[in-house]
């Protein structure tokens, strides 16, 4: 009996059979998850086990089958099992959508009829769109400038202090907070009750303004300043990112270089501009481009804080509005393509860096 079970063809049949059973069971699991009315905790536990276990099982059984194939075929098919699923998802979710969205951007709201450049003409002439471009430009310039410069200042200063780790952890902390959560935190800072007898402002900013003898203001509905109050939130969230990356670059500057400069009598300012900045130039560029891209795609903060009203709309929010509020898939696609075109220079830069790194 044993030799038969051990022979390769039989094991292969067994492997394929178990693959079929696993796929069937996973499909049943999906149907259960979709239609179930079980208690939430049961659903959560089942979902986690089903999702994670399912993927692990599929890989295991696929490899099991492949390794039972004749020798030459193993080397040919195994790369597909290893790299294939990842690439398939990449193509489905990112690579192919680039072209599909491009096609949709030339079509009408339902994607049925060809419309030529109409969506693009609208995107570059409509008053609301031009306002979003202006706002995104402000986010890019001011947001990036304050994130990078504050991050740099904090990194340089903290490097000189004994309590570096504490300071850095505090500045870094917002990176763990969602934009929606950050929105709540800052909305509370900006909150406004208005004038009236017996009313005391409960928002920190208005309380400070009142304490200095000013008038309380509805900060978030005051264009164009409200944009800056929103940009503050991004600076609060992203400075930690700039600080951490720049800090590690600063620590990479050879100590002898700094010492030699100090012995030659260079002031701290001269060292900062003469040595620190040139040494971390590459990192500065990386951090700046990352934050520029971030501010280009920015959505959550505006969505939660103002919904894009009162002159605070941004490109990504207009994309959302076009697709989901006005149901115009064509217009939304054109906006997405514009976003993509804006990041192409960074993409080319990354590809060039990759070629130079000779990882392959």
């Amino acid at each position, binding site marked *: 009996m044993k030799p038969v079970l051990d022979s390769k063809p039989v094991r292969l049949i067994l492997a394929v059979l178990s693959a079929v059973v696993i796929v069937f069971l996973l499909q049943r699991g999906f149907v259960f998850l979709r239609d179930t009315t079980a208690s939430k905790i049961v659903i959560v536990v089942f979902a986690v086990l089903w999702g994670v276990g399912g993927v692990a099982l599929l890989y295991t059984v696929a490899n099991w089958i492949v390794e039972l194939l004749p020798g030459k075929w193993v080397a040919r098919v195994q790369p597909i099992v290893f790299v294939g699923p990842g690439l398939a998802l990449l193509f489905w*979710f*990112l690579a192919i959508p680039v072209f599909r969205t491009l096609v949709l951007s030339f079509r009408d709201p339902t994607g049925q009829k060809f419309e030529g450049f109409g969506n693009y003409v609208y995107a570059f002439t409509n008053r609301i769109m031009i306002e979003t471009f202006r706002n995104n430009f402000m986010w890019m310039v001011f947001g990036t400038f304050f994130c990078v410069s504050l991050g740099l200042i904090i990194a340089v200063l903290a490097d000189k202090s004994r309590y570096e780790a504490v300071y850095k952890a505090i500045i870094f902390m917002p990176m763990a907070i969602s934009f929606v959560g950050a929105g709540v935190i800052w909305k509370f800072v900006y909150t406004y009750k208005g004038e009236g007898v017996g009313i005391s402002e409960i928002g920190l900013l208005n309380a400070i303004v009142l304490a200095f003898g000013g008038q309380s203001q509805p900060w978030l509905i005051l264009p164009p300043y409200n944009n800056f109050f929103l940009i503050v939130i991004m600076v609060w969230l992203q400075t930690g990112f700039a600080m951490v990356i720049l800090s590690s670059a600063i620590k990479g500057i050879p100590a002898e270089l700094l010492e030699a400069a100090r012995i030659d009598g260079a002031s701290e300012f001269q060292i900062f501009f003469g040595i620190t900045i040139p040494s971390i130039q590459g990192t500065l560029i990386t951090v700046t481009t990352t934050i520029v891209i971030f501010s280009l795609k920015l959505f959550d903060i505006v969505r939660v804080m103002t919904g894009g009203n009162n002159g605070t709309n941004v490109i990504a929010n207009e994309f959302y509005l076009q697709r989901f509020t006005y149901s115009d898939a064509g217009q939304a696609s054109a906006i997405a393509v514009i976003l993509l075109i804006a990041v192409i220079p960074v993409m080319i830069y990354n590809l060039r860096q990759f070629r130079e790194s000779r990882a392959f």
Partner: protein
Amino acid sequence: MKSLQTKNNLSNFLVNFTLILICLIWIVPTLGVFITSFRNSEKIFQSGWWTILPHNEYVKTGEIKIDESVDVNGPITVDGVTHTFEEWRAGVVMPDGKQLTWYGNKRTRQIDIQTQEWIWFETGMTLENYKNVLSGKEIRFKDGSGQEIVRQGNNLNSAFLNSIAVAIPATIIPILIACFAAYGFAWMNFFGRKFLFTIVVALLVVPLQIALVPILQDYTKLNINGTFLAIWLAHTGFGLPLAIYLLFNYINQLPRDILESAFIDGASHFTIFTNLILPLSVPALASFAIFQFLWVWNDYLVSLIFLGDQNRVMTMALAAIVGEKGQDWHLLTAGAFISMILPLTVFFSLQRFFVRGLLAGSVKG
């Protein structure tokens, strides 16, 4: 030498002073939300959260009834001091230091006597806000004027569980898939290997808005819109470029001789992968796992589009409270904190790995 010492002390002081100032600005908004979440809802609407600090405040110590015969539209005299109704309502400081303030409107005919007192601690800190915002049932709370409000709860309880059901698989699945792919790119030979990896690098900065419209079409056709599977797949697809890129860089650097000796011993790729590469890659896996977990947990856009209301996650639930009840600070602050607990814990306990991941992956947009 001495002057150098004092100069050093001074610059040290300036450095720390500046940093403490910046850190205060950074932490005070969060602190305000944290404190507010434990305050009584009535008090939240009446006074700023900083009033829980020791301070001097007018406290009501008695009241005066104004006789029906007094014309409230003309000047009103109380204890020998005469003012108009508006002035009384704004509060008048009497010669003896007490403040008299008209309570309510003209018809109440009541004046409160208030004396300045030091308030050291605010009493009545409560967990009520947390209980209310977590509950999906009917909730009751008091607004600023002491009126009781009855409302449907926001059911953050279920949103929290949904977030877990989304975040854990959406963290582990892309890691698993990316790890296999990274191993394939690093140690296997196949046609188009370099070209395909170039595509991975190119996709690193592609804004995910480009994918939302077509993917939504696919999901509608496949009838999986709103399911957990749909959002796991989306997060996996969007997270894969960075995951493959990071893990490839790591796995590619592992010494080649390990692999060769394993091959000579007759081990298959799959065995080498599970028994050698996975354990060796734990630091890189941890870095990316934290990255992806925080990203998925904090994501709003992807879940807003691919998850229905019955499976809504924390960020969606929180944004919904902002939308419907933008001024309900007792619910918002407690909700915000519940949404932050898990990511903050992960973040502070595994900060080292997170920083490493950031440094390795700072090419991503």
